[in-house]
């Protein structure tokens, strides 16, 4: 499987896949996509990398231990439920902030989006934990 073509293809595919996954994540609230699919795509990018080269280099590329990514993702998801409590609402009540990115353009950023980022991280971390440890099994 570790043919030259795959390696070369992976080199070119990897960055766009990653970008695409983030794009899926961010637009998920309004269009098809979201944390799950985004995370899966990001994970698939690294999986592809691991298949093309090896697990070792994929791990290096990732830099973090996938288990840490998972835990952080879970923590982010859980934490997104907390802000509501400060304004006296029930746990996980959506809290929205208007964020101006350019003069004149204001987008809604809310705790559900943060939650989705958590989902993205968890899915990414989980997928890689699985793939890496199965891949390292001889």
């Amino acid at each position, binding site marked *: 499987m570790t043919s030259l073509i795959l390696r070369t293809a992976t080199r070119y595919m990897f960055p766009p896949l990653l970008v695409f996954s983030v794009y899926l994540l961010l637009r998920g609230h*309004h269009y098809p996509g979201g944390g799950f699919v985004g995370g899966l795509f990001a994970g698939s990018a690294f999986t592809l990398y691991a298949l093309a080269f090896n697990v070792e280099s994929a791990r290096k590329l990732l830099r973090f231990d996938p288990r840490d990514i998972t835990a952080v993702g879970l923590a982010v998801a859980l934490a997104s439920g907390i802000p509501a409590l400060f304004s006296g609402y029930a746990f996980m009540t959506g809290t929205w902030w208007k964020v101006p990115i350019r003069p004149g353009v204001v987008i809604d950023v809310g705790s559900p989006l943060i939650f989705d980022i958590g989902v993205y991280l968890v899915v990414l971390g989980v997928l890689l934990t699985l793939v890496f440890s199965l891949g390292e099994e001889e």
Partner: protein
Amino acid sequence: MEVLLAIVIGTLYTGGLYLMMRRNLIQLIIGLGLLSHGANLLIFTAGGLRQGGAPILAEGEKMFATVPADPLPQALILTAIVISFAVTAFALVLFLRTYQAVGTDDVDELKETDT
């Protein structure tokens, strides 16, 4: 249409159950896979099939023009798919480990703990 899908669901359950009663660990896993496909399709069908498009509001619109598909079963199925993926992945590793520890993938030989 629903009758057709009911037949598909029935087939998936039959296949899944039959495979679960085989002796190979892998067939057990595949059986579970078919079973969860069947369950997902069941939710989808029982939730009502509507060909009115995706439950995604077009840009600039405030209301859906036609009644779109029921979003709730979709959310449920999405959750179920992901969960069953996670569990299948774990089960796979478990079976692998068992095969390595016991030296067989024959389910019938795994009876040390009973009796």
